[in-house]
């Protein structure tokens, strides 16, 4: 089954001492190893680089994180007008924030499972897509 992976899961997998890391890492390995199709919005690239540069102040490390993320065997999807319209509908109906709405809209469009560590996203988007934490996904 296709999965859309929220940047929270990607970032957590890199940091074993952070909450949700073990499940995120195991989940990512399982997804890649099973060759489940991975779909990511380009937003995930921006969010990951932004989080690393804010954590470290290092542009070099942030760039490296971005490059390494791009090595994931994933299909990257643009926020074109159609996708933006879907995200607008998600934002309005679920009262989700902008970035959250992009992930949910993408998962809905792709008929994919959305993996996230964001509890609010998970609670509010169930009408649009199946949204699970890495732990939930591993348990199913």
């Amino acid at each position, binding site marked *: 089954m296709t999965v859309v992976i929220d940047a*929270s899961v990607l970032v957590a*997998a890199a940091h*074993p001492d*952070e909450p949700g890391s073990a499940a995120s890492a195991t989940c990512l*390995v399982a997804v890649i*190893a*099973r060759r489940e199709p991975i779909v990511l919005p380009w937003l995930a690239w921006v969010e990951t680089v932004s*989080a690393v540069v*804010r954590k470290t102040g290092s542009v070099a490390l942030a760039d490296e994180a971005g490059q390494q993320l791009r090595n994931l065997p994933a299909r990257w999807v643009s926020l074109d007008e159609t996708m933006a319209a879907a995200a607008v509908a998600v934002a309005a109906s679920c009262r989700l924030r902008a970035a959250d709405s992009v992930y949910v809209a993408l998962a809905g469009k792709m008929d994919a499972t959305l993996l996230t560590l964001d509890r609010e996203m998970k609670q509010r988007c169930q009408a649009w897509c199946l949204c699970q934490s890495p732990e939930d996904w591993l348990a199913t």
Partner: protein
Amino acid sequence: MKTTVELPDSLMIQLKIIAAKEHRRLREVMEDVVSAGLLARERPSGDEGDSLAEAQSWLRDWQELGRRVRSAAVDARPVVEILLADRR
């Protein structure tokens, strides 16, 4: 969860060598090895073995970068917290 398991000396030595070479904790190496073993049992064919190796290789590189990020941290918050706070 903590548990006690008896392993042959030869296996423990191999695990410790990997941990030392990769500058990682023994516990982390054991988690990788056990996870890989469980996945391999589910999907034992050659192609899937390759994809498992690919997945573990990507994760190793990703976590190595994570260690460097932690070493260079100027913000004490977890990276996930920083990311989620950016959305709020």
